[in-house]
């Protein structure tokens, strides 16, 4: 969001006496205190929680698998992610929502260190996968990405056959001892991605020849073929029609039994349908995190409420 957007919000904040503060304080178990916040580059007469600089709701969860503490991301001088603390549970779908440019994708790309490929990107804070810091020296990004798979906004199958698309990951990691085992992995992954029935007889045909929805499921099959622990999805359905979207959503639901899934989405309905928890980002701040039902029925922060009711975004 631009500066004018910021001003608009500030003005609106001034108009109303914030009635939510007490409730916020009551509900947030643990929270980032305003003393520890950084990157407050737009001084404002408003209290920090009004701007979303303090996360409300519950950033913690039971059985946390990925834990981020005070994560900041800079692209050169641009402070893209500001002090985000969030836990992501095992076998759980968490949806990251928020207006464009709020940092949800940036945050997502921290979790598998895809930001490493951008030269100006700098990440601080700690991100732990199963208790181990993923930015520490002993954890190689290549090994990390084998454990944290990613599905992108636009389906991006390799210009290879369907088979080779799925087999690529297992091949480079040496997950299959022989051809039969590789065949098995490919078939199993395609089956779990709900694509096997459609492509069984044409595995040697190019993956790019499939329809958009099929391509995206192929990308999901490619991701789960490496047997990851966490799957990151960056608006996986934004390029798809409603029917293909529904199929992917069903798939996410099924996959959530075995994987921790983090999904970035612009569709509130989708977040409501597939996720158990929702995190709302705004201008690089994590404004609110809570159970999905709670966020959509009873948001605690005004920014969240404005967003889900369609007033900003």
């Amino acid at each position: 969001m631009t500066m004018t957007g910021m001003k608009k919000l500030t003005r609106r904040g001034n108009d109303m006496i914030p009635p939510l503060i007490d409730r916020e304080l009551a509900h947030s178990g643990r929270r980032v205190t305003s003393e520890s916040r950084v990157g407050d580059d737009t001084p404002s007469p408003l209290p920090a929680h009004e701007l979303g600089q303090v996360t409300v709701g519950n950033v913690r969860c039971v059985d946390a698998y990925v834990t981020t503490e005070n994560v900041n991301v800079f692209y050169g001088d641009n402070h893209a992610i500001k002090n985000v603390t969030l836990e992501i549970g095992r076998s759980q779908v968490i949806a990251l929502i928020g207006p464009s440019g709020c940092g949800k994708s940036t945050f997502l790309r921290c979790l598998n260190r895809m930001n490493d490929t951008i030269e100006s990107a700098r990440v601080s804070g700690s991100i732990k996968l199963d208790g181990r810091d993923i930015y520490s020296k002993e954890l190689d990004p290549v090994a990390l990405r084998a454990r944290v798979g990613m599905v992108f906004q636009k389906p991006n199958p390799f210009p290879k056959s369907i088979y080779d698309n799925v087999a690529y990951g297992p091949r480079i990691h040496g997950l299959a001892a022989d051809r039969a085992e590789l065949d098995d992995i490919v078939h199993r992954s395609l089956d779990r991605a709900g694509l096997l029935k459609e492509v069984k007889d044409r595995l040697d045909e190019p993956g790019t020849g499939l329809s958009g929805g099929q391509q995206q499921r192929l990308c999901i099959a490619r991701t789960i073929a490496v047997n990851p622990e966490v799957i990151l999805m960056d608006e996986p359905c934004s390029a798809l029609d409603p029917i293909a979207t529904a199929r992917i959503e069903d798939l996410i639901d099924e996959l959530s039994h075995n994987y921790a899934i983090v999904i970035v989405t612009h569709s509130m309905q989708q977040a409501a349908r597939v996720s158990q928890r929702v995190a709302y980002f705004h201008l690089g701040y994590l404004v609110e995190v809570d159970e999905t039902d709670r966020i959509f029925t009873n948001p605690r922060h005004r920014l969240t409420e404005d967003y889900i009711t369609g007033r900003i975004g």
Partner: protein
Amino acid sequence: MTKRPAISSRAVVESSLARRYRRERAFRLYGLLATTVGVVFLLIFFSTLIAKGSSAFLQTHIRLDVEYSADIIAPGGTLDAAYADFDAIIRKALSELFPQATDRGARRELQRLVSVGAGYQLRAAIETNPDLLGTRQSVHVPAAANVDMVIKENIDRALPENQRQVSDRQLEWIDQLESDGRIALKFNSALFTNGDSREPELAGIRGALMGSIYMLVVTILLSFPVGAAAAVYLEEFAPRNRWSDLIEVNINNLAAVPSIVFGLLGLAVFINWLALPRSAPLVGGLALSLLTLPVIIIASRAAIKAVPPSIREAALAVGASKMQVVFHHVLPLALPGMLTGAIIGMSRALGESAPLLMIGMVAFIVDVPASFTDPATALPVQIYLWADSPERAFAERTSAAIIVLLGFLLLMNLAAVILRKRVEKQW
């Protein structure tokens, strides 16, 4: 702000339409004109080239009844082909045809009707078939270049004798030979099998063609792998800083450096410092590699840049290392573009003559080079040398050599296009 009725803006748009379309038509016309001018010049170029050069692919031959007389070529009873006087046989055959030429001057003129290559031809014939000794054969021997020119009507008979390459007497003999049916135009195989020669009818482009091929082999073997590796490194691995910027600027500038400078560099480094042989295709290839490297690097970098980032991300996200991303995904997709760069570079190298001036490849070299270190010339240099020769018959051979050079270029590009099509996957 005054509120304008909707109708007026519609009128404004409609009134401007005619002007817009007029501009568009004018622009198209200019484009068409430019293309036409280009095509016309190309047609003129090709038609004059073919008109001038095509006659060089045929060579006048004279049919002579030669007797492989043992008295002349095997005086001691044994034939020593290296020393035998085959020209004497030709002389004898000619004087049998024209017994009236008796004085010394006339006999010399008569002898000059036939190419000096005729003797070599007889020698080669008897070497492959020794049984010919003592027999009488009817053979076609190449005519001298001047006779060839008369037959092809490139020498004006109307000129006074002292301004003509051919004497009146010779013209008479030629006419007689022609009426006897002893003159025939045959495919000029010497053009493709011989090296350079002072005699136009014996001069061929094989030496220059082989020199060019040897050079291009050296060039492609050096510049493509090095250029591709440099492009991959600069594009995928090198950090972006002042040094890489400096290198990039330098590579771009190198592509525009006059080619003779690369020849000077080749002379200084490869010949004077590394003491490589002068006039050798090896050195020529090295100099041309320097010339083509920037072209290949620039084209390859563009091809690598054109690979969609989504493919890289996809590979990275399943856990491919940087190296695997490059070799499994980026290079296969960039290869067609890189090959295009190589074609452009090679085409430029093939047509280049300036750098070869400096490393001694502009020379009269008769032998066809058989290795990378033999003295050689290249096709463009051969064209330049022939264009410089005073003999009439070299004029058509110059055009013929240009046709061969263009044909070679076309063949090379065709091969590269086929190769590229095979590499380029149709997904």
